[in-house]
């Protein structure tokens, strides 16, 4: 029972991270058919924003010293700002380009951000102590759970609810859903295209910042590649969920999280180092079974 509870919390908290990442990617894909590979680098950027630029091995904490109630909004704002800036400076110029071109542009942007960080902070991972007491395990019904896991899960659920309310209840949300399904048509109806896209980027950037905060608390280190692995999994999740489907992205994020944790438990110890190979194997099987993902959006099935 306690082992099961442990697995459940591990799966939910890992899945939450993947879900947040997948959501950030799916939002942008929805409004402009762009798979933004720079998303992982937004995550790293937000984390590094807490440090003072230096190439020393020891991290010089700067903004990270702010009280929590200021630090969190500040980092979210930085994420949103970077994301919106990349739309204005880079992606806006590719509005009518084909998706492959935009994807390459996002790769390029990702490298620019990564090497910018490399220049300021060097490639050495640094350790940083952010809310580390949250990682000290406490006992819940016999299982040893770090409070951070609980916070991650609760925060993710809160974000999902808030985002759902935003999409369903506000004018921006309505316009965003319409634009996600048929951008040209929405534009012809007078939907504020640029505003909607910027809003999507802002939300996506805030999601990246939230992931950054959780990751850095979890690991206690900052590293310029810290967003890359998560970005890859998140991208896979958006594909499995059905590109463009937001609920699909979230559910697939949780599924991959669960699959990863489960493999860690059920695989024989000798096979555990190859866990990811098994996870991605499951992904391949999944895509053979449903090539369009779990929840392919109705827009792609429209009658001709």
């Amino acid at each position, binding site marked *: 029972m306690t082992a099961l509870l442990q697995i459940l919390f591990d799966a939910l908290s890992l899945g939450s991270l993947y879900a947040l990442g997948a959501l950030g990617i799916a939002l942008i894909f929805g409004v402009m058919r762009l798979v933004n590979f720079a998303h992982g680098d937004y995550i790293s950027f937000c984390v590094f924003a807490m440090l003072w630029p230096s190439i020393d091995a020891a991290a010089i904490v700067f903004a990270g010293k702010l009280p929590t109630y200021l630090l969190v909004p500040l980092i979210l704002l930085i994420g949103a700002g970077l994301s919106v800036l990349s739309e204005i400076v880079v992606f806006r110029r590719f509005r009518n380009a084909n998706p492959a071109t935009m994807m390459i542009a996002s790769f390029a942007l990702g490298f620019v951000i990564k090497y910018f960080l490399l220049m300021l902070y060097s490639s050495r991972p640094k350790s940083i102590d952010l809310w580390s007491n949250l990682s000290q395990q406490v006992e819940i019904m016999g299982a040893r759970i770090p409070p951070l896991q609980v916070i991650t899960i609760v925060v993710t659920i809160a974000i999902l609810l808030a985002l759902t309310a935003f999409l369903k209840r*506000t004018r921006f949300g*309505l*316009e965003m859903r319409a634009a996600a*399904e048929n951008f040209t048509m929405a534009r012809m*109806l007078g*939907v504020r295209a640029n505003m909607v896209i910027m809003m999507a980027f802002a939300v996506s950037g805030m999601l990246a910042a939230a992931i950054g905060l959780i990751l850095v608390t979890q690991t206690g280190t900052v590293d310029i590649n810290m967003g890359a692995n998560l970005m890859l999994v998140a991208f896979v999740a958006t594909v499995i969920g059905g590109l463009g489907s937001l609920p699909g992205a979230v559910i697939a994020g949780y599924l991959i999280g669960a699959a990863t944790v489960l493999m860690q438990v059920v695989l024989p110890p000798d096979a555990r180092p190859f866990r990811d190979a098994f996870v991605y194997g499951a992904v391949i099987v999944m895509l053979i079974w449903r090539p369009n993902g779990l929840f392919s959006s*109705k*827009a792609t099935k429209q009658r001709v």
Partner: protein
Amino acid sequence: MVQSLSASGVSVSFEGLKALSNVTLDVPREKVTGLIGPNGAGKTTLVNVLTGFQKPTSGQVTLDGEDIAGVPPHQVRQKGIARTFQSGRLFSDLSVLDNLEVTGAGLGLSRGVAAKKADDMLEWIGIGHLAERMAGGLPYTDERRVAIGRALMLEPRYLLLDEPAAGMSAEEAVELTRLIRRIVAEVKCGVLLIEHNIGLVLNICDHIHVLDSGEVIEVGPPSAIKASEKVRHAYMGTQADAEGEVL
């Protein structure tokens, strides 16, 4: 001020291929104007020109006297020219109500006001019961009515209907006729009706333009169109006696 939407001397060519040549057409307010012609005659191209979807190669498009050739579609819509499309083109992942609301939002309304207007519009058309349904799963005729409702948001001055009766049964077409009459009488739109169902066009239109190979070959009231040799020729390709079968 002239109360009409008109094209004068409009030509459109796609890489040398003439889709429309020197077309003149007038859509007056509070009247139903018909636009008929064989497939490929250029009817939809003309609608595209009138709504800003297609920039004319030459010629003028005026809305109540104001030149609007080359104005982008969403601004044309804001100026009061709305249209429907041959294939519904609703947002299938959105509810029927949201489909209308988003048009209101696009026209600058707040969410609350847009929702109220959308609700009223659905009631007015008589499809209030569909409000919460996903637009993607609607039967064909309901989809058409929702599309008309979406176009009517904020009472446009002109409404362009691109083959609204396609795929409808006889009774459904009668119902559509009733709806169009109500639109003219109550919303006071000028309606341009593009339709293959000639019976419907002859029945409802005050004035009809016949387009063939990108040119207007006949203009007149239904009685004159019915009697026209040229029109019969365009449709049949011969002058064989086909009265009553085609028209």
